[in-house]
Each structure stands twice: as C-alpha cells, then as structure tokens.
C-alpha cells in the first residue's frame, strides 16, 4: 500500500505521509497557489504539479526528489496563430498522465480549452496534438462547469502504447489506436438528459464527468456521467447505463479497483445545480458486481449537515485496491483502509481540494 498521499488544493500542494503513529500532513509546496493537477510518474518517481496562477497564467513544475525541490517547466501552450485576437490559449491544465512504460519521458496533458498536449522529455517541451484539435465535432462541444470544454480523463491501455481513451466535458469519449495520429468518437449508448430528447444519444455532446479503468482489465471503463453512471467493455466505444443506485446517480468522481474489473467507487450528490450530499449525508458507493448493485458506506463520514462535494479527481485508490483517499470542496480529507467501508478524517481545514493521488 502507498504510504504517501498528495493533495492538490486551491492554496498549495500538500503531502500526507503515514508514519508509525498515523498519517501526518506536511508543510505544503506552492503555498497560496492554486494547484489544478498533479501526477506521480511511477516510471521514474518524478512529481508534476500544474498551477493556475490567477493573474500570471498556467504553470508547470517538476520535482525529481519526491517534492523537496521543484523546477519550473514550460507549460503546454498553443502554437502562435495569425489571428491573435481569437487564437486559443491554455486556461487550465486539468489532468496529467504518464506515457507507457516503454516511452520514458512521455507525458500527456489535458487542458481547458479541450486540447491534448504531449511531451517526450519529462515536460521540457510540449506539442499540441493537432489531429485532436482538428476533429470537426469540436464545433458542437460546450463547457461543463467551465466556460469552455476540457479534457479531464486520459486513460492509456497497458497492453498497447498507442491506444488511449479521453474523456471530454462536454465533448464525449474519444479513442485513438495510433498514438494520437487519428481519433474516433466513442461513447455510443451514453445519454444526455440536458439536451433536446432527439439529441440525447448524440455522442459528441456527452458530459462524462470522469472515466476510470481497472489496470488489470483495461477493456472495462467506468463512467460517472452528468446524468448517470455507465460502464463500457470496449474501452469506451460503447456504454450501457447502470440502474441508478440510492441515493443518487449524480456525482463527479469514480475510481476503479486496480485488479477487480467489477469493483468501482462513486461519491453521489444531489443533481445537478445543487451538488451537495443527499440529505446532508456523505456516502461512498461501491459496486462489486459490475454495477448490478451498490453498497453505501458512510461510517466515519459526516452524516448530517454536510455540504462537501468531491470533485472528479479528488478520489483515489492505491495499487492494491484497499486504501482510498477522498478530498472535498470544503477542505475535508478522508482516508479508508478497508476498501471504502469505513473512513477516518485526516484533516478538516484544508483549502478546497482539486485532486488526491497516492504515490
């Protein structure tokens, strides 16, 4: 199990470390600066932190010594365009992903607006994936929670270094089989209740809030969608809807068990303008049978007067599938050592949490 947890917040990057006497929170890096995404690259141990400085733009930093020192890198950026007035610029790094084991140094970044960038040298240089930027369906995308659409999920296929699935809010699920040279629109079977009924099945305007894949069963994809939960057995080409569990099928976060294809965790909330726990009680849902049924766990979590929301990157499970961490918009941080059945609060006074991730 991983004994180190990183927490990306509105006011810095925190580290919680498990010691003999329990978990301890350490002094933050980037205090006062919004951390929008982080990545621990298991191939070489490097840490990456994406910042969204309100005034001074999007920044990216790397640490090669487990967070002791940080070095600023060039952030992903669009190429200069002739029409500067309307040309895009990166507004937020929403997610970072490590490349395949056989591609040392390769990184992927998903941004707002919805662009994919690649680095082949640990973030020293970045290149826009032009073919994804050029997909014609992009004209129909729209923002979900932000003014512009964005990429929040980048899932690599451990069997095939050239295969990848992206989740875009609100632009659907996209797949490549050639390392990003070409893209196909997946997401058949997703349903958008926020569109006119005749457009509900249109794949290019779906809002998959988050996609999660079990490392040992990479054909399986779990999706927390804007208006439901869905599951795929073909890496996202097609989905089937899961019967809505109690208390709600709305939420943002989902994580998949690394070994067991039929196990995943969700954190439900009241849909969709309200976005607080149902009846003020925070629970975590776990399915162990591929979404046919769910158990609801609230032990150790606030069961009254709770208004915490868990963002899409703010739930994580470690490599063994037993230890989970969860952080909220209210700055609460919880940990479970038993597969999400019981939780302990690690801190209740953190800044709003964008992401949690085990090393």
């Amino acid at each position, binding site marked *: 199990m991983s004994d180190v947890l990183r927490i990306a917040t509105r006011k810095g990057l925190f580290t919680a470390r498990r010691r003999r006497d329990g978990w301890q929170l350490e002094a933050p890096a980037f205090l006062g600066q919004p951390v929008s995404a982080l990545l621990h690259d298991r191939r070489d141990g490097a840490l990456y932190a994406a910042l969204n400085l309100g005034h001074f733009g999007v920044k990216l930093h790397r640490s090669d010594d487990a967070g002791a020192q940080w070095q*600023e890198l060039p952030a992903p950026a669009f190429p200069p365009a002739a029409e500067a007035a309307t040309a895009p*610029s990166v507004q937020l790094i929403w997610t970072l992903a490590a490349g395949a084991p056989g591609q040392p140094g390769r990184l992927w970044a998903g941004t707002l607006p919805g662009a994919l960038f690649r680095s082949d040298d640990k973030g020293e240089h970045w290149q826009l994936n032009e073919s994804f930027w050029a997909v014609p369906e992009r004209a129909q995308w729209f923002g979900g929670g932000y003014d512009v659409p964005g990429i929040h999920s980048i899932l690599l296929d451990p069997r095939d270094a050239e295969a990848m699935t992206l989740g875009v809010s609100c632009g659907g699920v996209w797949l490549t089989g050639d390392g990003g040279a070409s893209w196909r629109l997946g997401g058949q079977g997703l349903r958008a209740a926020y569109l006119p009924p005749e457009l509900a099945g249109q794949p290019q305007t779906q809002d998959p809030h988050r996609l999660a894949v079990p490392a040992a069963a990479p054909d399986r994809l779990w999706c927390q969608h804007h208006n439901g939960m869905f599951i795929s057995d073909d890496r996202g080409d097609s989905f089937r809807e899961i019967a809505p569990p109690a208390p709600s099928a709305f939420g943002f976060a989902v994580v998949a068990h690394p070994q067991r294809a039929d196990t995943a965790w969700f954190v439900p909330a009241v849909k969709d303008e309200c976005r607080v726990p149902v009846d003020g009680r925070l629970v975590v849902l776990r399915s162990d049978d591929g979404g046919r049924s769910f158990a609801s766990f609230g032990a150790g979590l606030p069961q009254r007067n709770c208004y915490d929301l868990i963002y899409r990157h703010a739930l994580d499970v470690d490599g063994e599938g037993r230890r989970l961490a969860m952080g909220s918009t209210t700055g609460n941080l919880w940990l479970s050592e038993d597969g999400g059945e019981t939780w302990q609060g690690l801190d209740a006074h953190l800044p709003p949490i964008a992401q949690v991730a085990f090393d």
Partner: protein
Amino acid sequence: MGHVRFTANLQRHLACPPRSHAGGTLRQALDGVFAENPRLRSYILDEQGRLRRHVIIYVNERPLVDRLALSDPIDVSDEVFVFQALSGG
C-alpha cells in the same frame, strides 16, 4: 531614462528587477526585458503574445490601450508599471 517596473507580487514567483527601456512601443520595452529574463514572458503575456487577462500596465498614470498587440507608444522617459489586476484575485 524610464524604467519597466513589476508588481512585488511577481517577485515570489521569479526575480524581475526594474529595467530601463529605450522607448518606442510597450511591446518593444517588454521584449527588451524578456530578452534578459525569458521566463518572465509567460507570466505577463499568453502564448499568443497578448497581455494576460488579469494583468494591467500603466504608462506613467495612463492605463494601456492595446492589450492585444501592445502598440501603445512610449517615450524614452516614461515610467512603465506592470501590475496584477484586482479582477484576478
């Protein structure tokens, strides 16, 4: 000779001491600073060369006009102040 001066709030991210300029346009004055301090560029301008949305520049007591091309003319004796705008707080 006038100078380009930067908000103290930038100093926690990177060093950016005042630097003299030779007049011309705001763009030319800033390019002179960035030539010596290339990392500073992305803090002030986006990748399209536009002034960042929540940054404001004053030439003496005058706010700049052209946020896109930074074509505002400046005299060699003008003082240029680069601030963070309150809107981005």
